[in-house]
C-alpha cells in the first residue's frame, strides 16, 4: 500500500469494543452464554495421552452428576458412600465456617472476611483427590482444602481474629492463612503470585526425585496477570509436575469474566498454546471435580507434565466483606445459576443412592453449626481483632529477616518496647 490510510474515505472507521456489563442490578440474569452439556457425555482420555488429545476438552464441560443426582459417564470416580458423605460433610462444614466468620466480621470482631460459598466442591473435592502432602498454592477462596485436610477450625479462626493465638502473629489480613503442616502455602494478597511459585516448587520436587506434586489455584480474573503466563510457560518448558486450576466463578469483584477475556475463548483453552493438557469442569459437581483432579494428578505424577483445569462455577457471595454485589449484579443471579449448588447436588446424589436423607442432612447442618460455634468460642478466648489481646508490638520486627539486623534492633528500641 502506498498512500496514507487515515484520510481514506472508502475505508470504514475503526471502533473500540468494550465488553458489555450485563446483566446489571434489576435486570434479569442471563446465562445464555453458559453451555451446559449433559452429564456423562464427555469422554475421558487416558492420563498419558499427548496433551493435544485433551485440547478439545477446553470447549466441553466435564459433568458427572445429572439433574436427578445420578452419577453417569466415563468420569465417574466411583467413590464409596462413606467418602461421599465425608465430602458432603466437609463442604457443609466449610459453608458453616464461612457463615460464622462472615457474621463475626459483621459483629466487628475482625476487619475483613471472604467466603467461598457456592465453590466448596473446588477446595474440598480436590483435597480428597490429592495426596495430603501434595503442596497446595491456593487463593483466598480455597479454605476448603484446609478443612478437608483436617486442619483445626480454631486455628483458622485465630488467624481471622488476628488474636494472641494467631500463628501468623496478627500480621496477615484475615483469611490469608499459612499452614506448612497441611502442605498449604502462605497466601499472598498479590493476585497470581502463587501460580508460578507452584511450578517452581514442582520443578524442585522433580529435581529432587520426590513424589509430591504441586497444585495451584487462580481466579479467572487473575489470569490476566503476568504470573499466569509465567506459570504456563515454565510448566511447559520444564514439564513440571503441577496441576494448575483456574477457578472461573464468573466474577472478579465487579468485573464479569468477559473483562478477563472470557468473551472470546474459554480459560481452559489458554493451555493449548503451551502444549499443556487441559480440562474444563463443572465446578459445582463434586464428582467431576474429584475425577478431573485425580486425572491431572495421576498424569503429573507419571511425569507427563502439567494440566490446566478450568473449574466453572459461580461466586455466590460478595467478593468480600468490603463490597456489595447488589451494586453490580442482579440479586438473584446465584439462584438461577444453571449448575446449581455443589452441596445440594452431592446431597441429592447420596439420597438417590439411598445413603442419605433430608433428615440426616438437616441434623448434620445443626451439628456442624454447633461444632463451628464451639470452635469460635474457643478461638475467641484467645481474643479478637477489636478486643485483643494481640501479639505484642515487639514481635513486629521479628522474621523480617531470619535474624534481627542492627537497624531493626535500633528501630525496636526507638519504639520503646
Amino acid at each position: 500500500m502506498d498512500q496514507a490510510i487515515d484520510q481514506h474515505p472508502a475505508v470504514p472507521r475503526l471502533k473500540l469494543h468494550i465488553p458489555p456489563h450485563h446483566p446489571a442490578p434489576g435486570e434479569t440474569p442471563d446465562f445464555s452464554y453458559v453451555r451446559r452439556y449433559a452429564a456423562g457425555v464427555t469422554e475421558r482420555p487416558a492420563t498419558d495421552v499427548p496433551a493435544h488429545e485433551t485440547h478439545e476438552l477446553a470447549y466441553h464441560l466435564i459433568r458427572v452428576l445429572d439433574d436427578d443426582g445420578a452419577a453417569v459417564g466415563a468420569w465417574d470416580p466411583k467413590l464409596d458412600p462413606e467418602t461421599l458423605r465425608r465430602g458432603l460433610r466437609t463442604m457443609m462444614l466449610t459453608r458453616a465456617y464461612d457463615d460464622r466468620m462472615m457474621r463475626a466480621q459483621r459483629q466487628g470482631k475482625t476487619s475483613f472476611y471472604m467466603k467461598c460459598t457456592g465453590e466448596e466442591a473446588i477446595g474440598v473435592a480436590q483435597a480428597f483427590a490429592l495426596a495430603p502432602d501434595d503442596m497446595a498454592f491456593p487463593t483466598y477462596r480455597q479454605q476448603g482444602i484446609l478443612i478437608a485436610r483436617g486442619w483445626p477450625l480454631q486455628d483458622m479462626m485465630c488467624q481471622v481474629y488476628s488474636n494472641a493465638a494467631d500463628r501468623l502473629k496478627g500480621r496477615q489480613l484475615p483469611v490469608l492463612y499459612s499452614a506448612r503442616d497441611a502442605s498449604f502455602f502462605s497466601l499472598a494478597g498479590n493476585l497470581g503470585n502463587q501460580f508460578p511459585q507452584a511450578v517452581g516448587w514442582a520443578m524442585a520436587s522433580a529435581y529432587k526425585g520426590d513424589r509430591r506434586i504441586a497444585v495451584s489455584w487462580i481466579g479467572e480474573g487473575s489470569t490476566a496477570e503476568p504470573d499466569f503466563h509465567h506459570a504456563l510457560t515454565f510448566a511447559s518448558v520444564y514439564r513440571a509436575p503441577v496441576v494448575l486450576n483456574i477457578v472461573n466463578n464468573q466474577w472478579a469483584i465487579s468485573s464479569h469474566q468477559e473483562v478477563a477475556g472470557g468473551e472470546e475463548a474459554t480459560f481452559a483453552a489458554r493451555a493449548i498454546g503451551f502444549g499443556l493438557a487441559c480440562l474444563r469442569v463443572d465446578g459445582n459437581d463434586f464428582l467431576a471435580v474429584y475425577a478431573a483432579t485425580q486425572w491431572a494428578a495421576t498424569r503429573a505424577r507419571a511425569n507427563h507434565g502439567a494440566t490446566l483445569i478450568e473449574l466453572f462455577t459461580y461466586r455466590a457471595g460478595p467478593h468480600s466483606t468490603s463490597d456489595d454485589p447488589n451494586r453490580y449484579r442482579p440479586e438473584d443471579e446465584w439462584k438461577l445459576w444453571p449448575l446449581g449448588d455443589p452441596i445440594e447436588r452431592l446431597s441429592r446424589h447420596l439420597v438417590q443412592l439411598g445413603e442419605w436423607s433430608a433428615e440426616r442432612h438437616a441434623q448434620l447442618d445443626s451439628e456442624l453449626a454447633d461444632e463451628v460455634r464451639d470452635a469460635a468460642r474457643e478461638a475467641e478466648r484467645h481474643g479478637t481483632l477489636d478486643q485483643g489481646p494481640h501479639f505484642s508490638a515487639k514481635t513486629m520486627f521479628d522474621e523480617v529477616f531470619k535474624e534481627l539486623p542492627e537497624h531493626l534492633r535500633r528501630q525496636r528500641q526507638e519504639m520503646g518496647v
Partner: protein
Amino acid sequence: MPAMTMVQALNSAMDVMLARDPDVVIFGEDVGFYGGVFRVTDGLQKKHGETRVFDAPIAEGGMLAVAVGMGAYGLRPIVEVQFADYIYPATDQLISAAARLRYRSAGEFWAPLTVRAPCGGGIFGGQTHSQSVEAIFTHVCGLKTVIPSNPYDAKGLLISAIEDDDPVVFFEPKRLYNGPFDGHPDRPSVPWTNHQRSEVPEGHYTVPLGQAAIVREGAAVTVLVYGTMVHVALAAAEEARIDAEIIDLRTLLPLDLEAIVQSVKKTGRCVIAHEATRTCGFGAELAALVQEHCFYRLEAPIVRVTGWDTPYPHALEWAYFPGPARVADGLRRALEG
C-alpha cells in the same frame, strides 16, 4: 462552594477533564460500571460512556503498557491501580517505557498518562493494602510524583497531573478519602465537611505541580510532610504545644526545595515524617537535601519519623503507624538535639 470529600473531589476532577478533553480516558480494575472499590470513579461511565471509562483486566502492567501506547497516539489516559501495593507488576512499563519515552526518542514520543493509586494504611488492610511506595518512583527520572492531603488540593493537583505532558504517579492517601485523620484511631472519625480545604469549586481549576504549602506557620522547627501525615503533624504540634512550621509538600517530584530551605533556614531544625518504611524512603532524600542546603543553619540533627522497616502488620497497624505521639517525640528530639 460545595463541601466535598476527597473521593468526591477526585471524582469531580476526572468528571471535569472528561467533559473538557475528548482525549481523556479512564480505565482500571472495577472503575467502570461499579465506579471503583473506593467509589472514586462512581457515575463517570454512566455519564461519559463506556469507551471513556471502562473496566480493565487484572493486569497492572498491561494497563500501563496500553496507557503508554494510547499516550503515544495522543490520548491522556488515567489508569487506576486499585492499591499502591499492586503497582509492582507495572514497574517495568512505568520505569522503562513511560518515564523514558520522551528522552529516548528525543521528544518524538511521550506518554502523558496519570496513574492513580490509593496508598497508606489506617484501614486494617494488612501488609498488601497499606503500603506507601512513593520512594521507588521518586528515584526514577522522568516521573512526577504527587500526594495530596485534602479535597481542594486533590482536585487541583489531579487536574494538573492529567493536563501535564509527562507521566505522573498520583498517590491518594486512602485514610483521607472520607475525612481528615489526625492519627488518633481511638477518636471518632470526622467528616471533611468542617475542614476548610473541603470547599471545592465545581469547575476546572489547578493546583500547580511542584509547589508546597505551608499549612502551619511556626518558628521553632520545620516539619516536612505529605498526605495523611500532614494532619498527624498538625495534631502533634498542637498536642505538644510546639511552634512548628508544617510544610505540606504536595508534590514530591518536582520538589519545592525553595520553600523547604527557606523554612529550615528560619527555624534551624527539621523533622521529616512519612508512613513509608524508613530506609531509602523519601525522607532520606529530604534529609540529604536539607543538610546540603541548610547545613550552617541547622542546630540539631534532622529527625525522621517514619513507618518501621517491616511490612505493615494487620493487628499491630497502630504500633506501626507514625502517629501524633511519635511525631511529637520527634519534634522534641529536634528541639532538644
